[in-house]
């Protein structure tokens, strides 16, 4: 589904990704772990098409297309979804209007008609309940005045509405209490299927108690320095990043 080869990217003349390789097949859940500053968000943003990050080398293929040639909106329409580490607040655009516009754009891309208003409301109410947010949040501005945890739930809510093929979760677990963490995990587990894949970017092992990954990768200084099964996360938790010779101070 996703094939990243020797990916290099920079921001403001600073090289951040320095030759990253990653293969992901449909049905798989991958965890990417690494200390702060190792390039996890950069990888996520590059995959989503953030133009602030410049790709300087390598290739990314997604479902037999050159991902790097696709516009941000086309990536989303082809089923790529990024749950942001720091979602923006957009006062003036309601969650409802935002979600409806997004769904209709994606439907249009697939050659389908606009979603029926009643059907949409039913879906939105169902999904917001699923992430344990009050339905009144649907009428509020996108993330406007939401707490950190509410923003993360809202990202999961969007993911559930849009049903992506490839979901990338950038530290969706950070700063969450145990209830919110369960909501996130349940959301991701509900989405798991043989046709979909998930990349979970995380700093901690905790989330992986709830979403058991097929593979764990350790990112350091813009490269994946170690890959393994789910036991790698436990080992990291026990021994710390220093175990792999990573100097956490040096990364950030």
């Amino acid at each position, binding site marked *: 589904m996703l094939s990243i080869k020797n990916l290099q990217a920079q921001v403001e003349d600073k090289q951040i990704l320095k030759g990253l390789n990653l293969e992901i097949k449909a049905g798989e859940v991958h965890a990417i772990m690494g200390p702060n500053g190792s390039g996890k968000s950069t990888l996520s943003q590059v995959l989503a098409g953030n133009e602030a990050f410049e790709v300087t080398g390598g290739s990314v293929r997604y479902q037999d297309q050159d991902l790097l040639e696709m516009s941000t909106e086309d990536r989303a329409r082809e089923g790529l979804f990024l749950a*942001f580490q720091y979602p923006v607040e957009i006062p*003036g*655009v309601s969650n409802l209007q935002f979600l409806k516009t997004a769904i209709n754009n994606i439907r249009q891309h697939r050659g389908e008609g606009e979603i029926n208003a009643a059907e949409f409301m039913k879906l939105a109410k169902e999904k917001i309940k699923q992430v344990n947010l009050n339905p009144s949040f649907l009428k509020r501005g996108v993330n406007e005045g939401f707490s950190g945890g509410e923003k993360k739930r809202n990202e999961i809510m969007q993911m559930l509405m849009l049903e992506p093929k490839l979901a990338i979760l950038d530290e969706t677990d950070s700063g969450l209490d145990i209830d919110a963490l369960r909501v996130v995990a349940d959301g991701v587990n509900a989405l798991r299927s043989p046709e979909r894949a998930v990349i979970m970017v995380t700093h901690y092992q905790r989330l992986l108690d709830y979403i058991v990954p097929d593979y764990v990768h350790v990112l350091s200084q813009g490269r994946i320095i170690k890959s393994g099964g789910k036991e790698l996360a436990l080992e990291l938790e026990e021994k710390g990043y220093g175990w792999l010779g990573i100097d956490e101070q040096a990364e950030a």
Partner: protein
Amino acid sequence: MTNMREVLPQAAAEPDLPPALQDFAKQRFEGLTGIARPSRKTEAWKYSAKRLNKLEGLQLAGNAGEENAPADLLLGNVQSHQLVLSNGHLPSSLPQIEGVSIKAFSALSEAEAQQVAKGLIATRDDLPFAEINHAGLGEGLYIEVAKNTQVELPIHLLLVHQGEGMSLPRIFVHLQTGSSVSLIESVCAVSASSEQSLCNQVSDFLIEDNAALTYYRVNDDHDQLPQVAATGAQLKRDARFFSHVLSLGCPLGRHDLQVQLLGSGAECDLNGVCVAQDRQHFDHHTCIEHIASHCNSNENYRCIADDKAQIVFNGRIHIHPDAQKTLGEMSNKNLLLSSEAEIDSKPELEIYADDVKCAHGTTIGQLNEKEVYYLKTRGIRKEQARQMLTLGFVLEIVRAAPIAELAERWEQRLSELLSFED
């Protein structure tokens, strides 16, 4: 020195007015020679003077009859009592509304005429174009809402400017104690020309104790008609004035909005949305005078300028020495959509009382690319993302309008106007 007499060489012919208003017009006409024409050096007019002074030698526009009111007045499904003023002239039959007296100035008693001459704009001497309206006074519309009368449907004043020349619509509204009404003023043009027409309007509102006026002013004439308007509201004890201004299409739109909080407990909200495109120019000057104690004022203007348009916002709050326990808030946020557009924002606070809470904030910015990107990551087209964000920038203010059908119609119009689709 050039003076305002050049703008109005002759007063209205033999106006049929009560003595108090005849004297008023006569004095103001004589005074025109002493009033300098605004130039680029006149601080309050520096941005608008050039365009206004291009409108040389306009005759007073005559009564063009009552036909031809454009169909779409941004009213949507709003039910109203409608009154069409054609070039400022009153229709032959006036609506009958229970508890409301609607008359021409010519039918006023001497006491009522004196009231009109004491209106806020009528007593100002620093508004050179309002001065032309005073001096050229020929006809006017007088509305009085009786004590404790709540007028259910809004009164819609449709100011139609027809043809070339200058029209001088004049409105006076008196809300007696405990009464309330909504007034919608919309200005539109029929075969006007941006070089040869000017609508120069004055509206004065007197709001007695515990009365409430909700005022809507809409302007969307598709570029034909330059406009200058002055609106004044005087608020007595516990009176309320809620103003919603929507400025859209107009080659030149100057609006002076003046509020005096004269009685304690009075409150005003001034909301404004302005969108300027092409080479349009809008100049909004507001002034809130806190004269009595315990009054609240809240002002919120949002402006969007695209292409080569220019928008000016000048918001003044003046807190007089006796206005203790004042709460005053003013916010003006501006969005520039093109590098050739210009927005000038100038908040002015003058505070002479010590126990007051007063805040103001101004921002001028561009669309936030992080927000555009966030919407795009959800599959939303770039043009649509930009439209949603620009519309979102003003929507909060539009939706503050209490008549929901009106707010909906405004929102619909704005989303057309702010479309980035090719």
